[in-house]
Structures are given as C-alpha cells and as structure tokens.
C-alpha cells in the first residue's frame, strides 16, 4: 500500500443536505415499483413471443443466463466485501498488518483469499476496492491471480476431486502462488503502473469521497458505482461465454488431448472457453482426467482460475486491453511451463 499511495487530485461537489424522510419514503416506493414492474413483465411474458428461436439460440440464452445467475451472487458478495474494506475497515489496519517489504507483502496478499473465499468474479470488485485504498497495481494483481486458487473452498474441492493423486493439488497451489507472486513482482517493476489502468478507474481512484458524508451514504454510493461497472461487464462475459459454448464443438478439443504437449494447450484453451468458477472446476475437469495427462489437468486448474473469458470481461473494467493481453500471455506462458514440466516429471 505504501508504494503508490495516491493523493487526491480532484474533489467532489460539496455535500448536499441529507434527504428528508418523505423523500426517502418516495424513493423506496419507486424502487419497489420498478421491481414489481420487472416481476410483472416476467409473469406476463408469453413463451409464444420467443418460440421462433431455434434450439441453438435457446441453448445460447440458457448458457449465458446460467453463467450470469451463477456469478451474480458472487459479484454481490465481492462488492459487499469491497465496501467493507473501503469504508468500514480503518486504513491503519492495512498499514499495521501488511509487511513493508514488497516480496513479503505480496506473499501475504496472495493468501488473503483464505480470509475472503469468494471465487474469481467476486475478487475483481474486491481488488478494485483494495486499489482505491492505495494498493499498488502489482500487489493487486498478485491478489487477483492467487485468491481464486489459494482459498479454502477451492483447495477442499480440488482435494475432493483428486486427493493427493499425481501431485495435482500440490502443483495447483504451489503453481498459483509462484505465478501470482512472479507477475506481481514483474508489474511492480513497471515504470508507470497507472498506465495499466483504465482512465475511468484511475479517475475513480483519485476522487475522494466527501468527508462530510456518513459511512452509510458512502457505502450506498460505492454499491451503486460498483454495480454500474461490474454488471455490464458480467453481462458481456456471460454472453460471450454462452456464444462460444454453442459455437465451438467441445468434442474437437477433447480429441486433440492425447498428445502430452498439445494436451496442455488444449486444456488451457478449454479452461479459457468454459469459464467455470474456480471453486468447482476440479469436479468439471475430473471427468476428463482419464484422457489427459496430469500436467494438462494442472494447467487447466491454474490457468482457468486466473484467466478466462468471463474474467477478462470483468477485469477490463479496471485494466487496459494492453495490460490484460500482457497479463494473459504471461500467465499462459507460466502455466505452459508448469504443465509441460509436470508431464516430464510425473
């Protein structure tokens, strides 16, 4: 946090007087009215309106909705923790408990996921919150890459799926730790780390909330801002993930899997495409474990938890396209080395 402590460069307009009770009551009625209208639409929507959709189109909608419904609660959870970190946890806690030595600090950050066992989609708002609190880009990246794997839920499900078999569990945990710290270190060496961030996020980091506002209002504001940023990204990620599922024959990918070198690449591609959440991806890939070498399985488990289509859409809210391309390439190369190395050894 110490490395890139940001100074406020812009101020918000002066705080407005607190709204009176009547205005609050009206707003509550308004939002409930909107919710009722949405529910009404759902209840009157006639299946006949969309019965012209072909089966593939229907499946595309089902798949996209599935990704969205699965991720939505995690995104809300991530936003809630992010608000907690930004508004309710005093700054000095971070100052006190995060080591000053950058290597040690990143090591601590990479196991922070143990405290916040949200899967990767929830980590994005949380990492944004940490960066707005002044965490450096490299440090935040370490957290983003490590937390989906180094958290209790993922470790338990991976253990349930594979046990100690072939060292898959150990390789996943150790691989994630090393890759996350390596990338965090690399990006902390970046001469201008703020150029990696999107303009709007950078502006948000520099804006200071009006001090006169209470914590409740600040939390509400953050909730509105983060949903405005994350939800369009989640919709885009869900739609793209759904479309690719319908468009790419999975059988084709699996048939390529017998070669020890190609299989690593194939499972990385599969992980990128399916965008399964890191908490359960072990169960998913277990069904392929007869066909693929352990190195390929580990590559799937490490790469997919860090980078996939849905995740890139969410990360794009915060990082520039160039930065994301660089991150994805580096993670892919590291995973490739890990997977091929394992196939040589095991």
């Amino acid at each position: 946090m110490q490395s890139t402590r940001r100074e406020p460069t812009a101020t918000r307009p002066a705080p407005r007087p607190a709204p009176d009770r009547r205005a609050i009551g009206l707003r509550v009625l308004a939002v409930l009215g909107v919710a009722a209208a949405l529910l009404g639409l759902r209840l009157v929507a006639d299946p006949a309106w969309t019965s012209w959709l072909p089966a593939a189109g229907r499946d595309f909608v089902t798949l996209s909705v599935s990704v969205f419904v699965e991720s939505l609660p995690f995104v809300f959870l991530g936003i809630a923790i992010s608000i907690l970190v930004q508004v309710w946890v005093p700054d000095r806690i971070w100052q006190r408990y995060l080591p000053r030595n950058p290597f040690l600090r990143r090591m601590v950050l990479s196991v922070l996921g143990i405290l916040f066992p949200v899967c990767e989609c929830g980590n994005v708002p949380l990492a944004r919150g940490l960066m707005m609190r002044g965490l450096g880009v490299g440090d935040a990246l370490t957290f983003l890459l490590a937390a989906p794997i180094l958290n209790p839920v993922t470790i338990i499900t991976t253990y349930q799926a594979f046990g100690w078999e072939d060292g898959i569990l150990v390789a996943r945990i150790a691989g994630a730790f090393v890759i996350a710290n390596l990338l965090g270190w690399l990006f902390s060496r970046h001469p201008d780390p703020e150029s990696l961030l999107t303009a709007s996020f950078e502006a948000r980091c520099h804006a200071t909330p009006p001090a006169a506002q209470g914590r409740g209002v600040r939390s509400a504001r953050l909730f509105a801002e983060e949903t405005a940023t994350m939800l369009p990204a989640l919709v885009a990620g869900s739609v793209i993930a759904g479309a690719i599922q319908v468009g790419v024959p999975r059988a084709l990918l699996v048939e390529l899997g017998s070669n020890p070198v190609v299989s690593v690449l194939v499972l990385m591609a599969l992980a990128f495409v399916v965008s399964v959440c890191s908490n359960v991806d072990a169960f998913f890939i277990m069904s392929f474990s007869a066909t693929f070498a352990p190195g390929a399985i580990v590559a799937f488990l490490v790469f997919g938890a860090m980078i996939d289509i849905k995740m890139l859409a969410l990360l794009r809210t915060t990082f520039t396209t160039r930065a994301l391309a660089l991150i994805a390439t580096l993670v892919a190369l590291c995973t490739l080395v890990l997977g091929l190395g394992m196939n040589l050894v095991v």
Partner: protein
Amino acid sequence: MSSEPPRRRPPAGLLLGLIGIVATCWLAATGQLGLYIHPRYFVFTTVAVVLALVATVVAFALLPGDAGDDHDDHDHAPQGRTRRRLRGAGTVLAGLALVVGLLVIPPATLSTATLEQRDLNSSLDTDAVTLVGADPAGFALRDWAALVANPSTALGYAGQQATLSGFVTPSPDGNPDVLYLARFVVTCCTVDAQPVGVPVAVPGWADTYPVDGWLEVTGTFVATSDGSSTVIVLKPSTLESIEIPAQPYDF
C-alpha cells in the same frame, strides 16, 4: 443522458442489479433455479440476492440519484464525453440483454443442439465398477449410462428392470431403431453440463417421439448385437411423454 444535470441521472448499476435480482428471486420462488445452477448453490444464491435486494432499496433511498454512473465527471474533454456515451450505450445494451434473457424468454433446459457439441457419454464416471453390487433401484440415469457404456459391467445387468426419464436424442451412430434417453450432468452451472444417455430400443422412434421431448421409460435391459459386439439396450414396456421435470439435470 449526458445533457441532463448530473443529479437526475438514474443509478444504472442499481437498475441492472435489480433486473438480475428480480429474475433470480422469481426462479428461486418458482423452483426453477435448478435449470441453471447446481443445488448446492440454491441457498447461497437465494440469500445473496435477497440481501442484494435490501442493499439496492437502501442505496436507492440514500442516494440523490447521481451515483451509479462512472465518476469521470470532472473529465469534460470531448474524448471523455465520447467514452462516457459509449459506456452509457453499453449499459443500456446490458440492460436490454438482461430484460430479454431473464424476463422475456422462458427458462429452458439445454437441448440436443448442445448435446451434439459435447459428445454424448464422453465423460462418464470411469468408475462404473464401483456401482456393481449397489441396489440398481437407486441408480440415476448417469449411473446407468456408465454401466451400459462399460463393456466389463454392461452384460451383468441384462435382465435388470429400470424406470428412467430423460429427453430424446438420436443415437450417435444414427441407428433409426435406437433412441438415447439423455440428461445433462451438471457440476456447477449448465456451462459445464456433460450429456449422458442410455440407449432405448424403439424401432422407428423418430415418427412418434420428437427430439428433445421428455419421456419416462420403464423397461428391461436386454443384450443385443450391434454388428460387431454385444451391447445392452433398454427394451421399453411402457413409454410415456412427460413434462420437463423440475430437476432436469443429474448432479
């Protein structure tokens, strides 16, 4: 949007969230969450969206209505304005997609179109052998699919009775007299759904039963020759068209 004074701007994020929340609550209340996610997430998802609904109402009540859009307001360069307009268009598109996908199109299960992308029975439990000796009455469609596909276990179940439900899909080898009764196995959400199926002997089935229609079949597994080897198929005694069950996937 940008021409209006900032105070009047609607909190777009809260509205988007509300669409998702209302749709998810409706799915949960009508018992249809199982169409999209694994039952282990039902409680978490329901609690999370109800809390999110409370948070949305509170945030909406507390905010003067200018939040929700991104705060590069202090950036009034034309470039910034274009970007903001783009983002506004993206938000509107996302809202439309959510309304159409969640509130207009009826919830549905995956169909044969996806099954064909994913290779029927390509990812069966490889441990079908561990099922041997268990009471077949408790077998799900996925268990039967594994047993039938595995040559070392299949013939041991010839003569066994079973009642299974699933949707109709053509036999992978194109045999017109065998349909596959299929289901998807879901580990997290339908994105990871893997199709499994059991062959059912119904000569000329395509004339009577539509692909993707749901059937409940009661019958007996019998050994038969598929030309090169002996396999077992389910020979139905009753075949009944059914509504899509509330739990259409195997978990």
